[in-house]
């Protein structure tokens, strides 16, 4: 035998097509890049790139439109779910995605996210929770952990002054309009893989007309947390997940849109006002025609 013949090259890792070939502005060690990649991979695998209209938030990911090669609409701070609603209703064939941080979604935008979810809007929300306002220099967010020091909670978040961390995704999961809600993290390859499958599920929920879908992704902010990147990842894995446990919170996918006015998960209490139950459980569909047909049927 002579020298070993070189094996045919096999691609095991490449930049997803929808991820643009630019350097991001994110700080070293930031988890946003991982989440961007997951979104790009899932949209690419589902062939959704040409159909997608995404809504960018205000916050660290305000420049998401530079990193994902999609049509993007910038939203005022917190208003992405309303903007996405408008897009989805007039473009029933589009795939509509919001990408929001925790200041955006869990503080200033609580009204918009709750009501988009309550209406069961056919949109998919990617909610990146790093427990801090990174863009503005590391102030306390509604998701900041108790005791966590930030520039606006310099002695640590004290529940007596600043209340408790807001479990936004758990709150949304109770709404019948929500087809899928889950929480993943970027702490390690295993979590990242599970997060990706949740994002995929959340996208499929929209495609199948199941309802509103949200994936919260716990991420790290080494600069805002005052840690090295490796320290922040350990903190994310061992500490943050104690306040925000990982996993699927609700999965009502597969119910579709044409199931009529029953509560989609069969949880409507028997003594509930039937009109109220039906109105909350049958949010107007993204396709106007389908919705009207259903109403008239």
């Amino acid at each position, binding site marked *: 035998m002579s020298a070993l013949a070189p094996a045919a090259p096999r691609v095991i890792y490449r930049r997803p097509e929808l991820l643009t070939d630019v350097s991001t502005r994110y700080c070293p060690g930031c988890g946003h890049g991982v989440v961007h990649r997951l979104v790009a991979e899932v949209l690419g695998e589902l062939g959704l*790139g*040409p*159909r*997608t*209209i995404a*809504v*960018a938030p205000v916050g660290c990911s*305000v420049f998401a*439109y530079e990193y994902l*090669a*999609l*049509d*993007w*609409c*910038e*939203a*005022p701070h917190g*208003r992405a779910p*309303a*903007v*996405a*609603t*408008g*897009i*989805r*209703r*007039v*473009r029933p064939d*589009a*795939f509509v995605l919001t990408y929001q941080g925790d200041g955006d979604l869990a503080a200033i935008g609580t*009204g*918009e996210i*709750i*009501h988009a979810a309550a*209406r069961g809007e056919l949109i998919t929300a990617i909610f990146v929770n790093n427990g801090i306002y990174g863009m503005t220099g590391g102030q306390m967010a509604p998701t900041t952990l108790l005791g966590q020091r930030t520039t606006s909670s310099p002695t640590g978040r004290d529940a007596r002054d600043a209340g408790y961390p807001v479990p936004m995704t758990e709150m949304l999961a109770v709404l019948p309009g929500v087809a899928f809600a889950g929480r993943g993290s970027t702490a390690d390859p295993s979590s990242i893989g599970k997060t990706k499958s949740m994002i995929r599920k959340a996208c499929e929920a929209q495609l199948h007309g199941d309802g509103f879908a949200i994936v919260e992704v716990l991420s790290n902010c080494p600069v805002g947390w005052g840690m090295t990147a490796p320290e922040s990842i350990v903190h994310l894995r061992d500490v943050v997940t104690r306040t925000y446990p990982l996993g699927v919170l609700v999965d009502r996918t597969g119910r579709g849109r044409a199931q009529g006015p029953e509560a989609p998960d069969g949880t409507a209490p028997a003594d509930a006002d039937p009109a109220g139950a039906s109105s909350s459980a049958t949010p*107007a569909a993204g396709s*106007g*025609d389908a919705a*009207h047909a259903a*109403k008239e049927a």
Partner: protein
Amino acid sequence: MTTAPVDTTAPASPTSPVAAPGEAPSFSLAGTPEFPRRVLMKGNEAIAEAAIQAGCDAYFGYPITPQAELLEWMARRMPEEGRTFIQAESELGAINMALGAAAAGARVLVSSSSPGISLMAEAMSYMAGSEVPMVLINVMRGGPGLGSIQPSQSDYFQAVKGHGHGDYRVPVLAPSSIGEAMELVATAFELAERYRTPAMILADGILGQAMEPVELRFRTPERVEAPWALTGADGRPPRVIRSLHLQPEDLEEHNLHLQEKYHAISEREVRWAGERLDDAELVVVAYGIAARVARTAVARARASGIRAGLFRPISLWPFPSEQLAELAGRVRGMLVVELSAGQMVEDVRLAVEGRVPVAFDGRTGGMVPSPDEVVEALRELDATGLSARRSRRARRRQPGPVSGAEHLHPHRPLPEAESGHEALSIFGDDAWMPLWYTVPVPTRHGHDGPGRGRRGPAGRAGGKR
């Protein structure tokens, strides 16, 4: 500056069947002997239907008095037309849904009243910055704060001087009658799409709540290409709708582009109307519902020997400054009448640059000045103006704006018995007639429609000379 009086003579659009197959719509355009095309309609509902007939694809709103009927009309009619209606969770939700739908290329309408418009200010700034066309209707009520639910014109500053932050303007159109409001809805869509900008209709609680006979004449503006709209990056480079330009050089360039656009709008889109201006010595300047009162006042003043005329700005931005300046050169004084503590009066004074005394007469809080109040203010101005003319030399020595008597009546009771007319209508003697009958022709677009050249009994159309 060219003048484009509002196009009131556009031919009626061909009536289109509005019913879904096999389903009668709740509103019919049919013009038959049994059901003439002239009907009595409530302002809010007429405006809503005008928007539907103008091709509005999506409406987003939130209940607030005195515009709730507009939302209710849309709730019923938009689904009938297979279009989008959402009652949002707040005005913030409504206006941002509009932002999204308009960014996706839809023709979008949002309506609210004063406190709700304040909430929408944020998104108006974003839409101006990211050049998203959309029409917003403000059916004004009294303020500040929760104020009252009665008619008011106290949001003039808010509408024409900017709602949100940043260097921007939006076209603002002020109808004086329900019929005119219907026409201006179509005009507002045209302006919004032609210039890629939000546009506003500034109405008030009377126009929203009153019923008037209107002709079911609608106009559907042509769709313009929207090569910027978000449709999904299918076979083309991605598009981004944004107002963020982090580099100062980029933002300045963007702002200069916006300013060029605003300059073009100022050049081309000034709209106004005048009555009895040819031989007028004193001119009442009023917009919207105040112009209806002023119009009656002008007629009564004429009857009592005062040669008065009416100048009615229709586009509040761009403001007809040049036309007012020209008018100032041949009258003795101007009286601005508003349902506010005095807002547009500032723009009138800026326009005439001290050439004539500019007096003000207004009521606030939902109160409406009576025609006789306005006549009284004209009489006072008459005296002031005469003395001002006598001391013209003195005025030259003291440059700067010359203001006449200020009239802001705090708690004057409604004049019940001052005149036999008052009990009839707060709109005045000739309220039945839409004001657009007296808009000067020809129009910029040169339409030669059925209304061309018609004049109301109030007589001479003034305006452009």
